[in-house]
Every structure is written in C-alpha cells, then in structure tokens.
C-alpha cells in the first residue's frame, strides 16, 4: 500500500491568514465551477444564449418600430447587450448569495474555510463568467458588424468594475438578509423583477420625462448603466449619472453586506 504522505504538523497554524484565505477561495471557486457548470456545459452556454436572445428580441422590435417611421440614433445591439448583461450581473450575484450558507454549511467543519470565503467565491465565479459573456458577445457582435466597438475602453472597464462592486455588495446584503428571514427570499423575487424593468434595460435616462427621470435615478444601477453606455457610445446620446451617488450606495451596501455575512451562522437553530 502506498505510504500516507502525512504533511507537517500544524500546517494550519503556520500559514498566514491571507494565504490560507486565498487558497480556500481558489479551491471553492474551482468547486463551484465544477458543480455549477459541471461536466455538461448547458449552464455555461446559457450565459451566452440568454443575452443573445434578448438582443435578438430588441433588434426585432426595433426593426418593427423603424418600419412605422421612428428612427433611433443609438446602436441598438450595444444598447441591448449592455442593459441585459449588467442586469445579469447584479441579479445573478444576488440569487447566488441566497442559500449559499445552507449549501455550504458543512464546509465550516474544515477550519480553514469561513463563510465569507464561500460568499466571495460565489460572487467571484459570477463575475468571471458574466464578464466572459460580455467580452465574447461584445467581440462577436463587433466582428459581425452589429455593434460598434466601445468609444472609451477605460470608461467601459471602470463602469463594469463599479457594476461588479454594486452586484457583490447587493448580493452579500440580500444573501445575508435572506438568512435572517425567509420573507426576504419571497420579497426579493418579485422585487428583483421590478428593479430589472426599472433599471434602464429598456430605456436611456435621457428619453424619460424630466420628473420621472429624477425618480428613476434613485436606482444606483441606472447610474452605473448610463456610465457604461456613455463609455460605449456616449457621443450619440446624453448620459445622466452621478458617480458619487453610485459609490456612496456601493459603500453602504458593502458595509451592510459584510456585517450581515459575518452574522451568518451565529444564530441558527439546531436539532442537536
């Protein structure tokens, strides 16, 4: 029988906290990838299919609108892609954080693993896969001549990072709240649907009447989306956003998210 390659004693105590954390998050990430997308690649394919379907619908609707004589000045494919894919980012991050505790609870028996690691791994995987979808679809649509390349790549990058930050902070907050009460889960489903419709997938802030726009701009995702679209085709429309407001929202959500994730697991009922 092969010898059991026992490692040195006290391996957990020797490593610094950060290097343990990095290692654990890496391991969780690979595990999530394997269990989420697994051996069959339907799940991963869906990441590309879902936005493409939406873009196709918007293109069809637009050609219909055009046929009745209304013309739009903006590149419709880029408009639809930025709207849907950024919505996917925050919607999926939030839905992945709901229930993350329950399905990973038993991993806490392993001392190096903390709940925060689990939540970091979940949103990181979501970020990586949706960013991949954005890059791939953006390049494909560009090469197919359907969408212009971004005018300001740096701004698109920054907007995407701000969006990701928002999604992560929102995901942790919703995920943490869902552990407090199942009511949150029940409310979040319809609420995310309403938010999705209101958050600028279907419109530009500039196309709204002034007073309605003021209300819509309470939504932080609209600010991020306007900023993103300005980076992509900003010369063709007037963007409305306030980065200061977005960053404040992100900071507040990050704080509440970290507080809530930290509380997870300390107040659970048990059958023992």
């Amino acid at each position, binding site marked *: *029988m*092969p*010898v*059991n*390659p*026992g*490692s*040195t*004693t*006290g*391996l*957990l*105590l020797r*490593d610094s906290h950060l290097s*343990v954390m990095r*290692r*654990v998050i*890496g*391991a*969780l990430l*690979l*595990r999530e990838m*394997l*269990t989420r997308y*697994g051996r069959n690649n339907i799940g991963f394919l869906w990441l590309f299919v879902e936005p493409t379907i939406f873009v196709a619908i918007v293109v069809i609707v637009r050609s219909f609108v055009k046929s009745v004589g209304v013309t739009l000045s903006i590149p419709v494919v880029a408009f639809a892609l930025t709207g849907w894919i950024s919505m996917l980012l925050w919607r999926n991050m939030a839905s992945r954080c709901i229930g993350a505790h329950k399905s990973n*609870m*038993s*991993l*806490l*028996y*392993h*001392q*190096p*693993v903390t709940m925060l690691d689990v939540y970091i791994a979940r949103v990181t995987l979501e970020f990586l896969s949706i960013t991949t979808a954005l890059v791939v679809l953006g390049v494909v649509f560009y090469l197919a001549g359907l969408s212009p390349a971004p005018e300001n790549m740096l701004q698109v990058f920054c907007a995407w990072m701000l969006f990701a930050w928002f999604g992560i902070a929102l995901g942790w907050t919703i995920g943490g709240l869902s552990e407090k009460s199942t009511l949150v889960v029940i409310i979040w489903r319809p609420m995310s649907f309403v938010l999705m419709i209101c958050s600028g997938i279907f419109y530009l802030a500039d196309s709204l009447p002034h007073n309605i726009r003021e209300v819509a701009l309470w939504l932080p995702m609209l600010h991020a989306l306007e900023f993103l679209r300005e980076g992509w085709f900003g010369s063709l429309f007037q963007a409305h956003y306030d980065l200061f407001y977005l960053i404040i929202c992100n900071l507040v959500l990050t704080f509440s998210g970290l507080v809530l994730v930290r509380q997870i*697991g*300390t*107040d*659970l*009922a*048990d059958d*023992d």
Partner: protein
Amino acid sequence: MIKLTNVCKDYPTVAGPRRILDKINLTIRPGERVGILGRNGAGKSTLIRLLSGAEPPTSGTIEREMSVSWPLAFTGGFHGSMTGADNLRFICRIYGVDFEPRLEFVKDFSELKEYLYEPIANYSSGMRARLAFAVSMTIDFDCYLIDEVMAVGDARFRERCRVELFEKRHDKAMLIVSHSHRYLKGTCHRFLLFRDGAIEEHDDFEEVYFRYKEQIGEGFKNKAEMVSAMDADSRDAPPRVLVQK
C-alpha cells in the same frame, strides 16, 4: 493544547434560547485521548462542532494551539455531483497539500479503485464511508475529532482503519464520542460525562460508565454486575468494532 474557558452555547427554539453547553471549562493536551459520554442531546456533538470551528460559541473562548481535524469520516462536506477524486482534490486544496500522492493512498486504502472517478451520488453508503475515512487520513492533524465511530467495511478494512488511526497516530490527541464501552475502554486516558449542559471529568472508565448507565436509566446495581455484563457483551458479540483493547 486546546483550551475552553467558560464556553456557553445556546440554540434558539420557539420557547426561547435553549442552553446546550453551560460554562464549560476544558483543556485538551497534545497526545491526550478523551472519551465523551452522555445521553442524546446532552451536547456532545455541539462540543465537536465548536471544537472544529463549524460554529462559534455563544460566549466564552476557545483557544486552539493545535490543528484540529474535521469530524472523522464526516461525509457532509462532500459534494454528490463531484467524483471521489474531485472531492479529495478540494480537501487537498483547502489544506494546501499535494493531491497526487494522496490520491494513490485513498485509491488503495478505500478500495474504491476506479470508482473514485464516479460521482459520489452513485456510491453506496458503505463506499461513501470508506472514502470519507480514507480522506480523513490524508491530512495530518494534532487533534482528531471522532463523533460516533462507525463500523464500516469488512473486518480487514476495520483492522486497517484501526492501525491507521490508533497505531500510526498514537501520539495524537483525540476526542472520541461514543455510547459503546467497547470503543472507549482502554482507548482513552480520561472521560467526560455530559449532564445538563455541564461536564464531569473522570479518569476511571468503570466509574464513568456506571454513572452514564445510571443517567440513561439502564443502571446496574453495582460495578461488579456492570463489569461482568460488559465482559459477557464483549464475548457474545465478536469484536465488530474499530477500537479494541
């Protein structure tokens, strides 16, 4: 050394918080084997969870100066849709150890051979238990937590488990939760008896087992009667246990 100071653990119930552990003070020194007895719900598994770090105590402190294992042969951390090898790879990653040599060890020790490349959901419970035990043996800890040692596999497999755990790791600290005298007698240096959220420490097995039996309402008239019953029990049932003197 692991040191628990004034550790309390409450769980919320409909009727308000229920105290499972009440001001526990306990020290586990390197190489010490501690047997744990107590009726169901007395807090044995709760203590294991606190020691492994799966849950924080409600109040009090736990100082760990030794590395502590996950509960031995625990299958809960496995993911059913992943293969046995993938689950092992995950464990190796989080503990930062090399995977390849451990795969060889697990393949051989668990006797799962090529089944290691099948999703765990397809395993029988015996196969899962063998895998879990083998995986538990791939990481070297200072202190092992053993919650209800199971009897898995055939006599030969159990003998190999015994050698791996109690002979090769004779110098490690262990906490062994069990209801059976055959697991505990002669294995542990001292014993903890859980009662109403508190623990009584004992050095003598016959004493602690007598009190335990009394507690669960299967008491003996005196110790001599208990010892003869234990001997008869050991004679009648062939040693189907992992741990034996």
